[in-house]
């Protein structure tokens, strides 16, 4: 969906892996080259190996290029039989949207109460928050682009809310 200088789109499916465990154990279980964020709201990007989002001190979400990558990673971690790291396929759990454009932060502030100014929410920051009362996972991937992950049962409402927020900004953009 395009409106003025704003773009709202549903992203292609990608692999997602929910990682539970303390940070050292998770690092040990992952293949070399995949980094994990250690700070709250952090995002770790590994060249060619996906993006890892901080969800809580013991929860991270690893975004991978394909769903088969995620299944392989789950199998690999389970094969380790470590009692301290648990991996779950979360590829079907979330639906991904992206908002891009000069006013993308203002569009998201049409339903999200976080301070999304760049100093407060810089690139490679993520947050578990709400848009229009729908729980979402928000990631800033560039100064003018946000990705929003939402659980599938509520994706319909998030889409409606985002469309309305983009339209409501139409006159301003």
């Amino acid at each position, binding site marked *: 969906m395009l409106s003025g200088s704003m773009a709202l789109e549903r992203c292609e499916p990608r692999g997602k892996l929910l990682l539970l465990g303390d940070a050292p154990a998770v690092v040990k279980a992952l293949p070399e080259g995949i980094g994990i964020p250690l700070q709250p709201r952090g995002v770790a990007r590994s060249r060619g190996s996906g993006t890892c989002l901080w969800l809580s001190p013991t929860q991270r979400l690893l975004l991978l290029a394909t769903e088969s990558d995620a299944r392989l990673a789950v199998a690999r971690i389970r094969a380790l039989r470590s009692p301290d790291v648990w991996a779950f396929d979360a590829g079907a759990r979330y639906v991904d949207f992206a908002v891009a454009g000069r006013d993308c932060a203002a569009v998201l502030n049409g339903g999200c109460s976080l301070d999304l100014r760049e100093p407060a929410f810089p690139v490679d920051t993520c947050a578990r928050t709400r848009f229009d009362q729908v729980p979402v996972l928000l990631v800033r991937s560039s100064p003018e682009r946000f990705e929003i992950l939402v659980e599938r049962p509520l994706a319909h409402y998030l889409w409606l809310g985002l469309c309305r927020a983009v339209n409501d900004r139409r*006159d301003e953009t």
Partner: protein
Amino acid sequence: MTQRRLNGEALIDRTRLLTFTFNGRRYQGHPGDTLASALLANGVKRVARSFKLHRPRGIFSAGLEEPSALVTVGDGPYREVNVRATEAPLHEGLVARSQNCWPTVNFDAAAALGLFARFLPAGFYHKTFKWPAWGWYEGLMRRMAGLGRLNGIPDPDHYATQYHHCDVLVIGAGAAGLAAARAAAAVEDVVLLDSGDEFGGSVLRHELAALPRLLLLPRTTAMGYYDDGLVTALERIDEVRAPVPRGTQGPRQRLWKIRAARVVLATGAIERPLVFSNNDRPGIMLASAVRTYVTRYAVSPGTCAVIFTNNDSAYATAFALHERGVKVAAVVDLRQQPGAGLAARTRGAGIALHAGYAVVDTRGRSALKTVAIARCDPGVTRLLAGSLQWLRCDLLCVSGGWDPVVHLYAQAGGKLRFDARIAGFVPQRQGHRKAECIGAAAGHIDPPSQAPLLPVWRIPAWGRRDRRSLQWIDLAHDVTVADIELAATEGFRSVEHMKRYTTAGMAVDQGKTSNVNALALLGRATGREPAQVGTTTFRPPFHPVAIGALAGGRVDQRAQRFRRLPLQWHAEHGGVMEDHGGWLRPACYLESGETESQAIDREVRAARSAVALLDSSSLGKIEVCGEDAAQFLNRLYVNNVRTLEPGRLRYGLMLNDNGIIIDDGVLACLGEGRYMVNTSSAGALNTHFWMEEWLQCEWRSMRVWIAQQTAQWATLTLSGPKARTVLALLQLPVNLDGREFPHMHTRETEFEGTALRLRRASFTGELSFEIDVPADRGDALWCRLLELGAPHGIMPIGMEALDVLRVEKGFLEVGTDTDGDTSPLDVGWGVAISKKAEDFIGRRSLRRPAMQSAARLQLVGLLPAERNLRLPVGTHAIGAAGDIDGHVTSSCVSPHLERSVALARVRSGSTRMGQNVSLDIDGGRYSAVIGSTAFYDPKGERLDA
């Protein structure tokens, strides 16, 4: 109709004309006008009727403080009531009408109430209408109360919400606000908002627009100050309410929620009226408002004006009128001496100055015609005999001083003090950490008076008659001096009590022009100074807000967000989608010409005779893993989880600390230290939170990890005697034979490269397989199963059929067959619990005598004597003494048993098997026999069919 438009500069576009109607008559105005200025320009004086006594009222102010000129604007779905004419921008085709009058504003039948005014003082409804009963009068009273009438048509406009963060929020774009915003915007993120359209002149506007860190919000009114610097403000985007197809226009209004590190309140001050006899006639206005109409809109609200003041600021109105050619008959100043130079300038302009005089009365039935003035003593406590004069005028401009707009400051928690210099409440110095008042809002009234203001709260009435009941304080609610004094006499000394008793300050204007006069008069009546009386609590909103603006986008589908199943198939194939535990699920699937009852019956028969397919995706799915997972679940569930082997399932009940059932579900052991907990659909989130709370707060040393995976998996349930046959057609690498894969077992497998989980658990009493598949593959598998199962009579079923199937089997549904007082002992779990050696949440509570009492309500089955009578859920069982003996929790007419059956919670039910129970349905008595809950296949033989 008289045209009162003046020559000279104004902020209206005189080159264009706009046509509008008011009370059915056509008038013309200009772009830039408000409805109020256009009405005044057309000589319309009577605009509204007062709330209680239906006295004629005109336009009193020029802004949001307007207490009188409330009108209804728009038609049909665009009708809006209680719009202040002073704020409604004029547009072509605007339709407005007076409210609270019948048949017309000029002749209002209810004005006869004025004849009985002495019987209708403050709080009259607490003392009268008692005999024979309030109900005799209630209908009439309620019809007469309230302002404006809604027409019940949904509002077709939409409203937006916008969050914003900034370093500094400046509210008010007067000189002080502009200066503060400009200074701050050089180094910080600043928002400057104002109710008006403009931010200074054109040069300043361009300068402000060039500041990249300054966001300007015109037509935006701050509504409330909340915790931690959160300010709500309403932006009026499109005031032209006209039929435009829904969805093609932008929002009408936007509710801003601005969180600022610092809030600067440059909210100005509101002029205070003076209180004298008959001070409410159309034609009596605030002096500053008249100045605004003259200078901004080039409108003279009258042809001959009198100014009545106790301070210097009103003189500017006299000079503005005079300079525009409007006759000013006199300036009446309560003070013996006005500010330096003002007297000379007034007299120099040919305007009579009556210093040390007061306006003591007015006349004019439909609008002001004359005012009476009289000389008063310096303290304005009495009038001097023989000094009365009548002056002809049709406009009286009053000014009793200025009240700083400190509402937001007080809402922020800022403290106020009474400033005798302006006779008003101002912010205390350093009263608040984050909110700061500047300019007039801080009490710096501009220009500063050269002669001090003379605080006068009430002008004595002329003559012997007591005129206090005609001295109006709150024009919006018809509150008079007599009402305030009555409240004081009756012991309402607190300003909060006086407010509630008299309703002063409780109208839509929230007493912006009346509160200080009211509290000062209360002080006079109770021997206290205004500072001792204090103010009432300032609460948001500062200004009325449309409910639509508060709702924002939360309308239609977004008003109540039911979770959606991952399968899109249902709604496209006759599924009647309804709310079940917060999920939108198919109640049944209608086929051509079928009623819902017939559809449910068909689906139930298919499940018992062939195979049914049910979308159970809403089932909660929580994975619990770790070394201590078994012990963790063992403490949370009443069942013994430690003995659950990999590949096995166990039904479990979860209790709270009081031993009350809060959820149930099926626990699956997927491997060593790996469990999948299936919760009820409605309980998935709460169960997850319950688990996290215990893990994070109580059992922190446990090595357990919890993942909420409900949304990851779609769950399809094949149920019926042919379920195994249909499932086998998928050719899964799993032996489905009953001996290899028996009831209450689980398997993990793959189907076409996709992970799949199978469970043999049943909520229908039939052979059942629950199939978990990644949610995005659910639709494909569903369609495949329907295709493969077609030769075997497969049929999709909805929630209603499932309910019939489970009631026939007597399966418990938590939340339906249980309530906040149901323990596992009440549903027949006593023996099972007693076998568990280890502790679990709620166990100690279950040992209390009250929980073990035989007199508790226990779950039983009921067989009504009338075979086809479906017992309404909630039907009471009546005991021998007429007491309530229990109630029906679930009920259906079973297609297979060809009779009605029900589940009920009956007192001592488990010991009353075979006994009759009396049921009350809408006053009629019916009978039923108490029995087992399992009406169908009580031995469970069909589970392995």
